[in-house]
């Protein structure tokens, strides 16, 4: 059976940062991702990131991704691509599916950095070809260079809905409207102004009623909702569109943590069911760590810091760092995380994260 000291599952910003940190400390690290390229969501983010200078705001996600990949190679991380982790067993053995065969990988510590999956909405017609996640549309245009459709309805005006709308326009599609069920726009003002300037209307207090068409989407019916999310009769309108993109939130992709028997808590601010973790990102199962969106939906910048924390902690428990040095390094990362979770948008997450850590310590 193959062996590694630390397996990191998911090569997005969280997993890459975790793998680099653990390998730097001297651990033998295997980084596993199901895609043919590492980087997770980063390579889809062709826009300039928000946040502080220290966290490379103003840099595009793609560039951050390239830097992380080079660093990972330099410090000796073994990367296994096109490989799905299908199981996490109690003896810390992983089941891997690669192409047409499967393998076992025996590990001593595991860092889960599997990211998130997009939420969907169910409405009449939601299974028609042409209805897709906004993230899927973003992958099509920015990775595969294919337009998902010509005339698009975006559902959801959070950051993902706004950014993907703008990128769809850049790619040459027409976005007919963005609709948002809440009375206010959820995403940042800069992103909203950008799409408005490009002529896309943002209709708040609106929902999608149905998607219609024969073989694929040909029309969508939208309507206004009251403050209890009930459709107001008579406000229905039909839009001629061939694509409906859903940007209605993300949920932590935590099946492997469920399988490992980790304890969870339901935290709406962080995207739903989240595995409990302590200050070191260790779950309730010793030796299993989490980082990034799987530990609560946030941003690439927090994902990388959580990854570093998990990488340091996992390497520390395997004696690659002295407790003193480990603690100093981890507290530096914790300070940066606190700084990232400061301010209007960060505060709620900071509180939620504190609750997760407290619940884990009581568990």
């Amino acid at each position, binding site marked *: 059976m193959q062996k590694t000291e630390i397996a990191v599952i998911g090569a997005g910003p969280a997993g890459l940062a975790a793998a680099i940190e653990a390998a730097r400390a001297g651990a033998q690290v295997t980084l596993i991702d199901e895609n043919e390229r590492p980087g997770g969501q980063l390579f889809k983010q062709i826009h300039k990131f928000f946040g502080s200078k220290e966290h490379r705001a103003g840099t595009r996600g793609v560039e951050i991704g390239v830097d992380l990949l080079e660093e990972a190679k330099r410090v000796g991380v073994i990367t296994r691509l096109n490989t799905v982790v299908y199981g996490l067993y*109690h003896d810390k053995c992983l089941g891997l599916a690669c192409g047409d065969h499967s393998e076992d990988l025996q590990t001593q510590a595991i860092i889960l950095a599997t990211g998130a999956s997009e939420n969907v909405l169910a409405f009449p017609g939601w299974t028609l070809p042409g209805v897709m996640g906004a993230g899927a549309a973003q992958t099509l245009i920015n990775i595969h260079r294919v337009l998902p459709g010509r005339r698009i309805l975006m559902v959801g005006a959070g950051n993902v809905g706004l950014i993907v709308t703008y990128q769809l326009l850049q790619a040459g599609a027409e976005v007919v409207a963005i609709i948002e069920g809440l009375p206010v726009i959820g995403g940042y003002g800069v992103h909203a102004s950008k799409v408005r300037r490009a002529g896309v209307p943002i209709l708040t207090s609106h929902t999608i009623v149905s998607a219609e068409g024969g073989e694929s989407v040909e029309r969508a019916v939208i309507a206004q909702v009251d403050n209890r999310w009930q459709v107001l009769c008579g406000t229905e309108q039909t839009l001629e569109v061939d694509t409906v993109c859903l940007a209605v939130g993300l949920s932590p992709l935590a099946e492997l943590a469920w399988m490992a028997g980790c304890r969870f808590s339901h935290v709406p601010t962080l995207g739903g069911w989240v595995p409990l973790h302590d200050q070191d990102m260790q779950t309730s199962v010793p030796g299993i760590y989490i980082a990034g969106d799987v530990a609560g939906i946030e941003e690439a910048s927090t994902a990388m810091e959580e990854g570093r924390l998990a990488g340091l902690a996992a390497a520390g428990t395997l004696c690659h760092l002295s407790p003193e040095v480990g603690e100093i390094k981890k507290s530096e990362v914790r300070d940066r995380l606190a700084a990232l979770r400061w301010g209007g948008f960060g505060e709620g997450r900071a509180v939620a994260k504190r609750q997760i850590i407290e619940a884990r310590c009581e568990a």
Partner: protein
Amino acid sequence: MTEPVYDVIIIGAGSVGTPAAMFLAEAGFKTLVIDQFASVGQGANKAAIGGIRATHSDPAKIRLCLKSIEVFSTWQQQYGDNLEWIAGGYCFVAYRPREEKILKNLLAVQKEYQLNIEWLNREALLEAVPALNPEGLIGGTFSPDDGSASPMRSALAFYRRAREKGAVFQFGEKVTGILTVRGRVQGVHTNQGTYSCGSVINAAGPWAREVAETVGLDVLVVPDSHEGGVSEPVAPFLRPMLVDIRQTSDSANYYFYQHATGQIIFCITPAPPMVGTDRRETSAFLPQVSRRMVNLVPRLCNLRVRRTWRGLYPMTPDGFPIVGLAPEVEGYVHAVGMCGQGYMLGPGVGDLLVRLIQGNLTANDDEVLRGLRPDRPFRGQEKLK
């Protein structure tokens, strides 16, 4: 002395206890079922993959399962609930003379009991099951009246019917002792109270030995664990349950079928057995079972697995259940040790328990119970586990 509150208390709302409660309540017995878990069928029952056959090799299991098949196959017509029963048949395959010989020997016994089962040669078998790997195939048995259904749906349907007929269920309550006076059952102690009754049925599945110990009986039921799995649903292409009894270095038989809702559901018998109550999945199971399944039905290589689990078989030393009155304690009934077949045996055993408690056994019942006696020597070995 005051009258007991219940005629019968059943310990365990599983594959056996639930249909037993239904038949007893139908027959007019005041019946209470106690289970430690939160709802019906949460023990071994929910781990079963749903196979149901009467084509065994001994009169007891054959008779009991014929009754079960009658219940499963007519349920929807009679009561409306869809148990997802399909009479897809069972097919035991032979790729080596060794298995051919075992199966043909059993066939002779099975024929004696008028079971609808035939030997199909290679061509006939490939016609019945075109998805089979033809390479090296000799032939196999095919029994078209056997089939499959959903263990969870069945448990729920039996539970509803039992309640309709007046049976009472207490969930989340653990039996801690059996009350006896001068060698006669008087009631049952739980972690929450005491209930009085005339008879008690131990239907505690993998935990039966612990329960029996509380009245000083040693019943030879030892849990061992088996893993199962389910794929994504696909269009129907596989009719019968396929069973391959070849032994390899790390596994014995494995079996799988396509459920009414399209999923392939499968499990394997590990070698050596995994004794104990550990139910955490192993990393060995999926590669082991899928390799063998793909070898048998090559097109399965395109199928994705959704989920795996590990459940318990309540095993006995000879592979046969233990059913009958305990000679040592009056009013105490064993209905335990169902091994890998408790789901298919459940309704048949439940129906028989009514006549056992009424003292109204037929000649056939006597023959069935003779093979399952609690005080038998446990020397033989079941041939088709």
